[in-house]
């Protein structure tokens, strides 16, 4: 993948593919999960062919998501460790929400909001996986006591709602902060974008002369 001249690589091709496999699985899981959670959404089962197909495919999507998310976790966890900049950023959340980002303390590759999304998902997805296995009727319907499955079902629903709330925040942030969607679709951002939203990351790249977190031979950082 080549990137336009004078831009910064934010997400490599592999990262982006990995992200969107996870994202598509998440959306399909949300649609099928909501259909099985509340009758007003049951019509969504038609998107999967039928209720039976939806019931059959939902756990496999979940397994795919877990594997895919593991890939994201390996790539992102280090840059998502909490530091003092994040606390300072979080304290200025009112300015962030008000788009006065010039007055917000600079942060590295990810800000506190993104880190909450990351760790929130990193916490909830394993919970969904384990409880999901317990209620996977076809293979594990007889593996545990019915009472265990009742607990698992309630936790699975609660965790799923938590994940969906995080997802709403994640998607809205991508719409709100212009240039973010392109960063995940096509991989690159402008230097001004990096300067505005992730100044310490930008300055680190400038100092090292690197075209991005995963140097790509065709990428052009400096002209």
């Amino acid at each position, binding site marked *: 993948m080549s990137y336009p001249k004078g831009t910064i690589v934010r997400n490599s091709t592999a990262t982006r593919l990995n992200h969107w496999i996870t994202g598509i699985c998440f959306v399909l899981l949300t649609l099928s999960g909501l259909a099985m959670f*509340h009758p007003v959404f049951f019509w969504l089962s038609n998107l999967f062919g039928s*209720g*039976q197909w*939806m019931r059959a495919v939902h756990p496999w999507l979940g397994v795919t998501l877990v594997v895919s998310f593991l890939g994201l976790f390996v790539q992102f966890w280090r840059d998502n460790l909490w530091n003092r900049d994040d606390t300072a950023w979080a304290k200025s959340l009112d300015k962030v929400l008000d*788009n006065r980002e010039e007055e917000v303390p600079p942060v590295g590759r990810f800000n506190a909001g993104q880190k909450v999304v990351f760790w929130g998902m990193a916490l909830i997805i394993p919970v969904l996986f384990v409880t999901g296995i317990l209620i996977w009727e076809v293979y594990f319907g007889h593996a545990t006591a019915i009472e265990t499955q*009742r607990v698992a079902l309630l936790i699975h629903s609660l965790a799923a709602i938590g994940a969906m709330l995080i997802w709403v925040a994640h998607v809205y942030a991508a719409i709100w902060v212009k240039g973010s969607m392109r960063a995940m679709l096509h991989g690159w951002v402008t230097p001004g974008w990096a300067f505005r939203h992730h100044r310490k990351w930008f300055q680190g790249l400038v100092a090292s002369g690197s075209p991005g977190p995963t140097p790509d031979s065709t990428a052009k950082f*400096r002209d």
Partner: protein
Amino acid sequence: MADLQSQDYIRRSASNLTPPSVRHHELEVAKLIDVSRCIGCKACQSACMEWNNLRPDMEEFQGAYENPHDLNPGTWTLMRFAEYEDEQGNLEWLIRKDGCMHCEDPGCLKACPAPGAIVQYANGIVDFISENCIGCGYCVKGCPFNIPRISAEDHKSYKCTLCSDRVGVGLEPACVKTCPTGAIMFGSKDDMKDWAGERIAELKERGFQNAGLYDPPEVGGTHVMYVLHHADKPSLYSGLPDKPHISALVGAWKGFLKPVALAGLAFAAIGAFVHSIVSGPNETTEADEAHARAEMEKAKRDGSAKS
């Protein structure tokens, strides 16, 4: 069978609207199983298989009278045998015909996510409409009696229909028809309660002081009732629940969480939309680009100065 009686539903799974219920002038029915008259012949099991065309797979002998060893998708009723030593040291052989209890407040129906996969008719019968079943197994979690079984072949849930097809045309269930001792009876729920009352009085005369009717109020009563000689301890009868109730976990999941979760998601989405209207997008400005360019050029100059 398809839902031939679709005009007299009083409950329909995963449906927020009032089900078709115009044919409500209907007596509530009940099956009364008099445990004290049962001889354990399993004729009811055979009749059930015969009427419903069920032929479950042959199993290995498990060292007990139960055959098969548990309910399964092709065994909707099962004789269960328990040996009980009473206070006087007498052995009592407590035999119970297990199967769906047709609860007035059915946990399976409450838990079911598929619209119309589980229905309750005005006569009280709880029926699985298999073409709507998605095989998720939620009914298993909802049931206080551990009755529904999911087929591994067609991924549908099965249980006793109380012969809704027979009852619908004025016949008694197959097990009732075949019982040689009159231990299984069928009629209006009121009549069955009256009949049970007479029988319980007889049992008390014979020394069973705790004889009584099993019609648990925790699930609103059932449309399959037992006459028990030890009604104070139903669990003696192969684990018949003393106080059957829909699990509080299922109640929280299907009662509290559903509206709260939807409200939470709607609130988040509306909140995001309102933020977009109020604050607008966060856009990179020309000033940001200029700052960035300046920093990059400075780094370049410093770099070339060093070399």
